[in-house]
């Protein structure tokens, strides 16, 4: 299928964004005055001169076929002179100037299977990663859990009844592509079994010193196996980080019996009110249960409802828990507190409860 190179260009960079901006944005660039959310999924930005831009946000699985993208293009042509954008959380936004086009567009989007929502105090789409679709590292799938969780929370996407924004993210391994470490709710794929050593391939594929050095806990030691250099793993010391696997394909961690997901909560990135926070471990392990991971969706649903019911208005998940304290959160949620919850990494000492500030 290779084709003739006519004139090879490099380092041209991306197209200039100005080519893609609708006239109303060009005219009011930097001159927006305020916005309103007339209905869930629709933003109205009003410029100094009174001009009004409507953005209609539709949910997206992010993994899109060219078929679907062409459909988007059609809708953009039909309702907004061909102008649209994607958001930092992978939703698609149609940029309208004609208010009367909003409802027909939404109807068409719904017909296409794309609900409109995700604005204001809602759950918007889940920032996620490749999973079994494309990555060698995955301890779980990405798109499947995302679909199941969003199905289960769809009314919170289509309405704005939550106390604040709720950002969910998923990463299929500890590399944490995405914003898992700072999300209101994070779903994180984890291995729980130390790497199995492929003794045949290891000497061929990997440099022993690199492999040994890659392990942060010094769990890997060089040995000689069958006259060839190899490694052994002190299983007690393994914390399943997969750093060794990143440098050496002969040390796979994936293991259907032991892979699964953990749930982390209470992170955020905005500076609104509270400073950015890391997510904290809520549920150490749930086995993979495809295709719809019911234990995961169930657990998340429970946490969402608990927060929705108890938080003050504007309080993000982490702010709410910080106010009531983690012990009370564990009591309320019925989640069992376990040894796994107790930090034992670098800054562990600072996570101990160092005061008598307790609830009973």
């Amino acid at each position, binding site marked *: *299928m290779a*084709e003739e*190179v006519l004139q*090879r260009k*490099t*380092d041209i*960079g*991306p197209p*200039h*964004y100005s080519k*893609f901006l609708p006239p109303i*944005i060009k005219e009011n660039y*930097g001159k*927006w005055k*305020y916005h309103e959310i007339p209905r869930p999924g629709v933003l109205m*930005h009003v410029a100094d001169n009174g001009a009004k831009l409507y953005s209609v946000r539709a949910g*997206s*699985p*992010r*993994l*899109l*076929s*060219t*078929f679907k*993208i062409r459909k*988007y*293009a059609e809708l*953009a042509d039909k309702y907004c002179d*061909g*102008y*649209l*954008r*994607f958001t*930092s959380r*992978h939703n698609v936004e149609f940029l309208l100037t004609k208010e009367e086009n909003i409802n027909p567009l939404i109807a068409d989007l719904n017909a296409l299977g794309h*609900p409109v929502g995700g604005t204001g105090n809602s759950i918007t789409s889940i*920032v*996620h990663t490749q999973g*079994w679709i*494309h990555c*060698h590292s995955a301890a779980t799938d990405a798109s*499947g859990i995302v*679909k199941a969780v969003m*199905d289960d929370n769809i009314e919170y996407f289509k309405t704005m009844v939550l106390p604040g924004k709720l950002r969910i993210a998923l990463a299929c391994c500890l590399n*944490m592509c995405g*914003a898992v*470490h*700072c999300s209101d709710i994070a779903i994180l794929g984890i291995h729980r079994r130390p790497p199995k050593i492929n003794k045949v391939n290891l000497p061929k594929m990997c440099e022993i010193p690199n492999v040994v050095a890659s392990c*942060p806990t010094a769990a890997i030691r060089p040995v000689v196996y069958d006259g060839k250099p190899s490694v052994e793993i002190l299983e007690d010391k393994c914390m399943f*980080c997969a*750093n060794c696997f990143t440098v050496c394909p002969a040390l796979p961690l994936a293991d259907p019996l032991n*892979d699964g997901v953990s749930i982390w909560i209470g992170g955020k*990135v905005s*500076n609104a*009110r509270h400073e950015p926070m*890391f997510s904290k471990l809520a549920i150490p392990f749930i086995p993979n249960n495809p*295709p719809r991971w019911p234990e995961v969706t169930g657990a998340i649903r429970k946490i969402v409802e608990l927060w929705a019911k108890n938080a003050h*208005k504007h309080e993000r998940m982490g702010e709410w828990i910080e106010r009531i304290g983690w012990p009370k959160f564990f009591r309320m949620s019925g989640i069992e507190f376990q040894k796994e919850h107790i930090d034992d990494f*670098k*800054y562990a000492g600072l996570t101990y409860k160092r005061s008598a500030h307790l609830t009973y």
Partner: protein
Amino acid sequence: MAVDKKYDTPMLDELEKGEWPSFVKEIKAAAEWNAMSNDLLGLLEQSYSEKMGHWKHGGIVGVMGYGGGIIGRYTDLPEKYPNISHFHTLRINMPSGWFYTSEALRTLCDIWDAHGSGLTNMHGSTGDIIFLGTRTEELEPVFNKLTAAGFDLGGSGSDVRTPSCCCGKARCEWACYDTMALTHFITNKFQDELHRPAFPYKMKFKMSGCPNDCVASVARSDISIIGTWRDEIQVDMQKVREYAKNGTDIVKEIVMMCPGKCIEWDGKDLNIDNSSCLHCMHCINVMPKALAPGKDRGAVVLVGSKAPIVEGALLSSVMIPFMKIEEPFDEMEFWKLIENMWDLWCEEGKNRERIGEFIQRVGMGNFLDSVGLEPIAEMVAHPRENPYVFYEEYFEEGEEVEK
């Protein structure tokens, strides 16, 4: 590539149900005509039933003269799924702010339909347009067509990664600087660093127009540029009173939630002690028609966030508390700092050590010394609590001695 086989996908079919748009439907749509996507469907069903992925470590593949932009990928079941024996992704640099015309999207689709799986991510979590899966021999042709259409590859490996930003001034009343213009400028300024990995590890830039940080820059970028202001919050008192009248409980929702504890409300006037305002955006977020960031706008630059592998996750921390961001961008002193930082990191950083980890290792104080920045209180949440100070000088018989 015609599709000749049909896979049974009972598990995946379950994921066509429900109201959220289904990625399975997307794959199936492509699998109708595309053999790669069809094999992907088969492989994925197998992964679902075995609870395990079937991809091997990626090899080094790429386009001529570029070191990044392609993630090589091969299945470990090439006999069973021959059409995805190679299944490399291309990372294509998106336009700032992810704005498109329908025409631009169709151009991208045309290219990808001709050379790949017909599947994409719009977008990857760094921000790129992801062309999801093709064979090695297709890479050059795709690349050539892309550049012909005005698109270029993004980053991967130990290079500058595709910079990304919020929509900023294009659509947001709070943008304190022009995120899209700066992002476009940075992307072009660092084309070489983006395409030819030469760093100890990856280097990400993310630009948010205000402290709401709609691209999560503080958590996901080595260089986080977050808009802010340093004069007074603009207040339209009449509008504040309207909010109060229309049901906003100003004491509960705003006064008591202000982290700077610097707002007073007597039922008529809102009084902000701007000298204690932490620029968190909360009061503005709640009353967008009444309040707005000040007029003396710029950005705070933070450095060093990343995911946890392997020393633990980091958030970016303040390096420049306030910087004006104005055209001509290339005259900004800022680039000198970036250069100094990179020089130091390239020289002394370990392999696979992000710049944030490097700073943690050598210490902020030493890092500042080396890049030529003065230490200032804004860089710390609080001064040290431990008494182990490395005083650098002492006196000997009446004269000061440098250690």
